[in-house]
């Protein structure tokens, strides 16, 4: 974990042992070893095919 002042960089490890870098605003109270849930909007995802080319999708938000 690294505090950069206005934002905090978290290094999270998922079950499959995949490491994620997550940047949050402000100072995070999350500590090493804590469990956290993580959300992502579909429109924030990017998708690439096996050749590395972007697969375009429309960022339609499903109703709440």
């Amino acid at each position, binding site marked *: *974990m690294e505090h950069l002042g206005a*934002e905090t*960089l*978290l*290094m*999270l*490890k*998922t*079950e*499959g042992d*995949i*490491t*994620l*870098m*997550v*940047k*949050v605003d402000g100072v*995070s109270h*999350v*500590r*090493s*070893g*804590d*469990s*956290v*849930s*993580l*959300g*992502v*909007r*579909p429109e*924030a*995802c*990017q*998708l*690439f*095919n*096996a050749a*590395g*080319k*972007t*697969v*375009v*999708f*429309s960022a*339609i*938000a*499903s*109703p*709440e």
Partner: protein
Amino acid sequence: MTYVSLENIAKDFGTTRVIKGIDLSIEQGEFVVFVGPSGCGKSTLLRLIAGLEQMSEGRLVIDGRDMTAVDSANRGVAMVFQSYALYPHMTVADNITFGMRMNRVDKAIIAERLERAATMLHLQPYLDRKPAHLSGGQRQRVAIGRAIVRDPSVFLFDEPLSNLDAALRHEMRVEILKLHKSLGSTMIYVTHDQVEAMTMADKIVVLNGGHIEQVGSPLDLYLKPANRFVAEFLGSPKINCFETVVQAVDKGVAILPLPGGATVSLPLDSADISKGDAVTLAIRPEHFVVGETEPQKSKRRWSWWSTLVLKPC
């Protein structure tokens, strides 16, 4: 309207083609930044535009004039190098005016241009000093001053700030942008610095292995990369990438598993991918929302993942 036009430009060194057919249009007054991994051809492309290297193929047009066979000195371009390339035995003033004196420009014009450049770059107090007695930032200002007095139609910068410390780099970045605004000149700028590229450019050109991966505004490249290379090249820390397999495509909506067991649904624009295809899902570090507890299920806009454990570090 296009001001600088690169048309299918190629460059061979011996039998190796290092620039592989570059097409690029630059508008007058645009600030264009070239980025790409080391060895991808940024400096070579800049040197081809400057006329310091001969093109193997293609055409260069500046302001409607075919410059392909025109001498470097007559192209109306000025280049600023990372290494400053100042004459150590000359004063700042003499370094700045050297080219004009060689070309026997009128003394009054020389004095006027020197005055203007020195004012813009805050160099008046140092005009009688030798480069050895200047800081790195001041030396780079002299090198920029030397380019300004040539009154070029295009400025070319090859990593001009990479020898400076972070604070100075920031200051010089602001200076160069001010200069760009007051001169209104077309500028092409090579950098390794992500922040420089994202904050300075009207248009970023991402180069890779001698060809262009994508051209666009910083935000467009960041949010709508044409491919994985561009997505991974821009952004610090790097975008998170997961190799995954399309779980299903239902009525044009692809379901993709996320690490931890959740899935995300993406409505596809075309039938590019189908069930079972290997794909890469990528998410920028700042595009996550972190919660300490499970969110309410009603928030269907979000794809929530199962709980993750913070890696001790």
